[in-house]
């Protein structure tokens, strides 16, 4: 049974917010992960280095956490790879079309008071709730 963890959630959230402030203050960029990663396609050579560096930092930050002995999730044993690929395609295509994900719209956009980001966030959270319900309780995959 998973538990409600308000303090670590809040602490992690503050770090994510801090990261977004640092990236805007220094590089003038929005810390939207789908935009930073998707922007590697068709970008000029000069626009690539900071993107790769940010994404390497994401991987490195989680790895440092693990090296420091932080708790890691135990991977699901039998979650279908085909579903992961389908989910990946939808997340990649959808965030590119909608111009953002949980970080770009959900954190940075809301922090800027953008009605567009509020509409996006309300939409993807509501649809994800429905999608989770279908996968877990109708198809019974977990």
């Amino acid at each position, binding site marked *: 049974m998973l538990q409600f963890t308000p303090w670590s959630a809040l602490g992690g959230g503050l770090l994510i917010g801090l990261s977004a402030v640092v990236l805007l203050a220094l590089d003038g960029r929005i810390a939207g*992960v789908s935009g930073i990663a*998707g922007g590697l396609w068709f970008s000029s050579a000069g626009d690539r280095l900071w993107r790769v560096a940010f994404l390497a930092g994401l991987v490195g930050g*989680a790895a440092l956490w693990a090296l420091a002995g932080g708790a890691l999730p135990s991977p699901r044993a039998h979650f279908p790879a085909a579903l992961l690929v389908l989910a990946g395609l939808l997340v990649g295509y959808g965030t590119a079309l909608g111009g953002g994900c949980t970080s770009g719209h*959900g954190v940075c*956009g809301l922090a800027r008071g953008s009605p567009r980001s509020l509409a996006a966030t309300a939409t993807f959270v509501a649809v994800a709730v429905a*999608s989770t319900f279908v996968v877990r309780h109708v198809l019974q995959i977990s």
Partner: protein
Amino acid sequence: MSSQVNRQAIARALAALAAGLVFGVGLALSQMIDPLKVLGFLDVSGAWDPSLMFVMGGAVVLAAAGFYLVLLRRRPLLDERFDLPSRAAIDARLLLGSALFGVGWGLAGYCPGPAIATLGLGNAEAWWFVPAMLAGAGLQRWQSQRRARTGATAADAPAS
């Protein structure tokens, strides 16, 4: 001159690396790298776990205060100008894209940040998800570029 430019680009990359590291630790600390934790929030029918709201709440409040102060300046420290999204329209693209993202997020419990952060943790799930995600993003961007190009060509062509 050109070494000056390179030095700026390297400084920007180091800043991005630092921001990424902090973001990655934040995702790990908040357990957003655990798809079951995320699905515990999205699954409202069982024992609902509201933790994700605290993650977003903390991030949004701190970012809102920080953005306000940062944007009082005319430019970022390491670049000429702020690169902020200019689109404001709540249109079909935004809603359809966000809905497709929502379907995928609810299917597996990964959004882009946690999926990429998981690449270094020895969990094979991310290695299925992330390449597919990049392919999906590449496909949409390719379509959008091609549409812009054919649109421009059609507009330039003499009406006959």
